């Protein structure tokens, strides 16, 4: 018996910022588009984005997309593809104006223009400084406002939402063309085939591979697991961003906008230590730089609190009025999760896993690309990806704050437009292969019939613990080697997880087991790629190879699930219309 089939022009997996931006393009163009989401769209993790979206509007002083491009390339430690970065920075101002016309409630200046705040790594004059105010924001709830705006526009355009549906596997025909996905309706436990002319992944990040993360429980890298099971590699998975300011012990994010508005970090001696690590940018250096400085302070015994395990983020000097108007959500989070009122006392913070720079390899048009023959970047027909799950790559080895929202707006739209082009040339559905859905059936049968296996929560805890211990802010050769060994053992255990509750209706145990199948692919890709990269670049900082090595390592990693093999491809150093920004030493 095969699964029931539903037909759409296009299926979008994920209804966060990039999924909603892409589906809006398709729905407004009149296509029959299905959007699948594990949670109600406005609860997608984009909702947690606080500080703003980067675009060189120049509302607060002089700015240009060329400067934004320079900052992004430098922030990426030259691992970002310069064609994609140029495309993003040039399109960014346009995407903000579009969003404004969609009804996004941005903060305003006196003259009515969109308010922009300073953010880490964003400078004037090609990195020379001083800091530029480039982050367009709606208080400290920018992502929240953005999701609601985009969702309402989608409802208006008649996009079809499948809420609380989980995509399970990709369906490709004999030629490799993507013709659909399988997905489970959580309420009933029933599985369907979504037969489509094109599939677009917008499944967000996978921060839940770490024990301590700012990410929501839903961020399990579903798109990454799905494509790696379908033979598509994952790119640059060794690069994980640790956000400097997660609430100590709780992991909840405190926006970099706090430092943008004038807050700063202190060690136990009350010293503003960032002045030592980044004399120019200080607390507004790139995130990898600030996170390493904090970890060093803690390691050398200058951490705060009983366990000397965190530093302090001071913002009381900004005044209660500014905090309540520009950072109201932060005050609420600090009270709830750290039991301090930041208008009076500093917030205990610690670097916390926040963002996945790597992902599904795409070009700047949002088309998924994978090696075929001698072509390292052959387009996979019918498959698109955008947002955090994709690796275009604009963030390279380290993402600048505000560029995640810029990424999802620009590439959500670009991937949507590429899908439309593909649909114009491919007017009818290609036939489903005879074995469509078999992989999903095999996985579900395995899970239902497993005996003598371990619980999902036990194996999941081992996975998160391995990543946290062996693949953190600082990386050591012995830890990376044992990390690879340990995660391969965890992989064996994931293949034998057992659920006691086999019921169909809203069975979250089954959902979590299926999510673990995706998390393990992400963790394997991360550790294997990290162990192999013998240099320090951006967020990947090795004790045994302390310097960036452009001779041997100015290249993207590609991890393949089959045999857990690695390959490499060149970084795009040629932008679209401007000159290459040549690698140089990165200081702030």
């Amino acid at each position, binding site marked *: 018996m095969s699964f029931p089939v539903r037909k759409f022009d296009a299926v979008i997996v994920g209804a966060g910022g990039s999924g909603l931006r892409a589906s809006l393009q398709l729905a407004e163009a009149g296509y029959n588009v299905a959007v699948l989401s594990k949670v109600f769209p406005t609860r997608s993790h984009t909702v947690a984005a606080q500080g703003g979206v980067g675009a060189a509007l120049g509302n607060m002083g002089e700015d240009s997309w060329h400067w934004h491009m320079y900052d992004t390339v430098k922030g990426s430690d030259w691992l970002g593809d310069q064609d994609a970065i140029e495309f993003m920075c040039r399109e960014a101002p346009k995407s903000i104006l579009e969003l404004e016309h969609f009804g996004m409630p941005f903060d305003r200046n006196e003259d009515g223009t969109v308010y922009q705040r300073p953010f880490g790594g964003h400078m004037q004059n090609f990195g020379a400084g001083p800091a530029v105010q480039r982050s367009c924001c709606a208080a400290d709830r920018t992502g929240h406002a953005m999701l609601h705006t985009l969702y309402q526009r989608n409802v208006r355009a008649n996009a079809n939402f499948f809420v609380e549906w989980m995509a399970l596997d990709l369906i490709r025909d004999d030629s490799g063309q993507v013709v659909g996905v399988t997905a489970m309706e959580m309420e009933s436990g029933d599985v369907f085939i979504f037969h489509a002319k094109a599939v677009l992944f917008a499944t967000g990040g996978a921060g839940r591979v770490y024990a301590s993360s700012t990410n929501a429980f839903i961020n399990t890298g579903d798109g990454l697991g799905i494509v790696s099971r379908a033979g598509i590699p994952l790119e640059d998975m060794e690069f994980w961003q640790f956000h400097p300011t997660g609430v100590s*012990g*709780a992991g909840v994010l405190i926006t970099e906008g706090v430092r943008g508005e004038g807050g700063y970090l202190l060690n136990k001696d009350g010293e503003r230590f960032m002045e030592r690590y980044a004399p120019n940018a200080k607390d507004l250096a790139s995130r990898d730089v600030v996170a390493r400085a904090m970890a060093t302070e803690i390691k050398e015994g200058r951490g705060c609190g009983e366990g000397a395990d965190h530093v302090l983020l001071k913002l009381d000097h900004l005044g209660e009025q500014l905090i309540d108007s520009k950072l109201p959500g932060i005050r609420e989070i600090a009270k709830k*999760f750290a039991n301090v009122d930041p208008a009076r006392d500093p917030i205990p913070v610690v670097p916390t896993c926040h963002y996945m720079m790597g992902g599904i390899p795409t070009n700047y048009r949002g088309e998924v690309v994978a090696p075929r023959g001698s072509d390292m970047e052959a387009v996979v027909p019918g498959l698109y990806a955008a947002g955090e799950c994709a690796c275009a790559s604009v963030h390279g080895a380290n993402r600048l704050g505000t560029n995640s929202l810029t990424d999802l707006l620009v590439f959500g739209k670009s991937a949507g437009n590429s899908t439309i082009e593909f649909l114009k040339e491919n007017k009818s559905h290609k036939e489903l292969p005879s074995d469509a859905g078999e992989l999903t059936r095999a996985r579900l049968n395995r899970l239902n019939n497993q005996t003598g296996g371990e619980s999902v*929560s036990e194996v999941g805890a081992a996975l998160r613990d391995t990543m946290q211990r062996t693949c953190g802010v600082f990386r050591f050769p012995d830890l990376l080697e044992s990390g690879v060994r340990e995660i391969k053992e965890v992989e064996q255990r994931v293949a034998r997880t057992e659920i006691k509750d086999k*019921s*169909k*209706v809203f069975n*979250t145990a089954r959902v979590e087991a299926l999510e673990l199948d995706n998390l393990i692919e992400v963790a394997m890709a991360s550790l294997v790629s990290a162990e192999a990269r013998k240099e320090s670049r951006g967020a990947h900082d090795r004790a045994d190879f302390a310097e960036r090595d452009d001779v041997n390592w100015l290249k993207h990693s590609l991890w393949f699930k089959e045999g857990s093999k690695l390959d490499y491809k060149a970084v795009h150093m040629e932008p679209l219309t401007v000159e290459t920004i040549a690698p140089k030493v990165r200081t702030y």
Partner: protein
Amino acid sequence: MLFKIYRYDPDKDAKPYMQEYDVELQSTDRMLLDALIRIKDGRYVKSS
């Protein structure tokens, strides 16, 4: 801490019922969600 949870499995139960769980909370548990995850993972002292 004692939790009373409203339970219902439409496959098995004729109607919903209350179940009690005695949970030992840790200092790292900040939210109700942390307690619910403990219960779901079976990390409680006893249930009745």
